[in-house]
């Protein structure tokens, strides 16, 4: 029998009601993620990728189907599934250190343990010099490092990332992608990563899940076999990108037809 997956999404659908009108955001999504995998969800806006991520996070309740983590239904937000938002969601009244310590302190860990954990993760994301700064004093890239660190400091087993680098400039984004891969490889994290950039998805993922709008659903899955570290300028990388691009556009073409 196959190893138990960390995440098993079974026939998940979501229908919102807006002014008495029903909107189907997601239909019959099925996805299995194994521990340590890096999976990217990609698709045009309205394809339900964020909805799916928020259902896994426990922020939304599916209308049909269920999301299982270690075979148990997801019952709401919990520290084992840390979320990294595009708009950071840091607590503005807490310093970098206090933001990273928020989770451990909430769980009632002893003070000294919280302090040690915080120190470790402040250093891991390279913010030692800014440990006592407030979020409004940080650049976007630094804020996102804090957001990642606070999830890791809270022992998250799976990190859910909703277009986390979408608001950053290209150079910062590339650096954070590298750092994220570095952390992922060192910690055996499982990452579920939403993006609309084909390049980002291929650069990061073991597997890319392509989603389609109207109603939002999973269209296809693609394993990325390129060896790491990946070079976005290599011919092999470009080939994969061309492939995936064609796939995405054929979905769109079909829909338009």
């Amino acid at each position, binding site marked *: 029998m196959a190893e138990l997956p960390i995440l098993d999404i079974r026939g998940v659908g979501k229908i919102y009601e807006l002014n008495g009108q029903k909107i189907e955001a997601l239909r019959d999504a099925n996805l299995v993620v194994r521990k340590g995998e890096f999976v990217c969800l990609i698709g045009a806006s309205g394809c339900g990728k964020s909805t799916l991520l928020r259902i896994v996070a426990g*922020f939304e309740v599916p209308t049909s189907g269920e999301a299982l983590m270690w075979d148990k239904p997801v019952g709401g937000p919990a520290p084992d599934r840390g979320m990294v938002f595009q708009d950071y969601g840091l607590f503005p009244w807490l*310093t970098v250190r206090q933001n990273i310590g928020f989770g451990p302190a909430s769980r009632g860990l002893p003070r000294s343990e919280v302090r040690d954990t915080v120190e470790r993760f402040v250093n891991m994301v390279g913010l030692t*010099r800014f440990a006592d700064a407030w979020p409004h*004093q940080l650049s976007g890239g630094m804020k996102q490092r804090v957001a990642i660190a606070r999830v890791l400091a809270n022992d998250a087993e799976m990190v859910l990332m909703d277009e986390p680098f979408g608001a950053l400039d290209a150079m910062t984004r590339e650096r954070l992608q590298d750092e994220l891969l570095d952390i992922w490889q060192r910690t055996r994290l499982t990452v579920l990563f939403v993006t609309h950039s084909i390049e980002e998805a291929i650069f990061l993922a073991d597997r890319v899940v392509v989603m389609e709008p109207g109603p939002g659903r999973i269209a296809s899955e693609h394993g990325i076999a390129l060896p790491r570290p990946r070079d976005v300028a290599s011919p092999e990388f470009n080939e994969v990108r061309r492939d995936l691009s064609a796939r995405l556009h054929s979905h769109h073409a079909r829909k338009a037809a």
Partner: protein
Amino acid sequence: MSVTTAAAAAEPANAARPASRWPARFKAFGLALIVPLALLAFWHVAVKAGMTRLIPSPAEVAEYMVDFAVGGIWDDAFSATLHIHLLASMSRVYGGFALAALVAVPLGILIGRNETVRAVLDPFLQLMRPVPVTAWLPLSMILFGLGARSAFFLVFLGAFYPILLNTVFGVRSVEKRLFEAASMLGCTGSAQFFRVVLPAALPSIFTGLRLGLGLAWFVIVVGEMTGVPQGLGAVIMDGRTLSRTELVICGMIVIGIAGYLSDRVVVTIMNRLLRWSPSHHG
């Protein structure tokens, strides 16, 4: 301190503080003096030119002020009584304000957080709000009698609404994202109140406290018209009855300065507690 170095190094968000702040402060002080000095000069010239015989000159008011504060010049019923009146007014202002804060902040939090409490109280409070504090004067005299309790009540009423409304606003406008962030980090239910709602609402609560304290000083004159023997409002009323305009002006100046100083205290505490907020740097 590492915080300031971080602030200076951290890109554009926060402009570095200038190394020498004294010239800038001196300039600000000088600029702030222009209008009061011009007004004083106009007042002086107007009185000297005989435009009015009912208003004393600035120099005369200054002399009365010294007598009012320490005595030794006129030695009348008001000489060296400033501290008595000031203390009487301050006790009512701060007492009424403290009581208003003690009631309005928790009530505001309740209204902001609880649908039922909001449904019960909000319509009533909104209905009462347009009634000016001064309109309460006759009723408050009937309810609390002539004297300090009536003044206390009016100050309470004046400070109550700004504190309440700003607290409700602060509690209701906490970003949804912060609740999501807290709950995925393991902070759920009532724990979110102290770790998310209260800190997030603090800037608004302080805005309310500041407005409330300002209004408390505003209302005190009306409150002390109700036959109290002591207090700056009483001094102004007595000055009016006795046609002693210099006394009226002295009372006005003391209220102005006391109100200003107490606002500075609140602002200092606020800036200290809200150092994290980009809009509270000074």
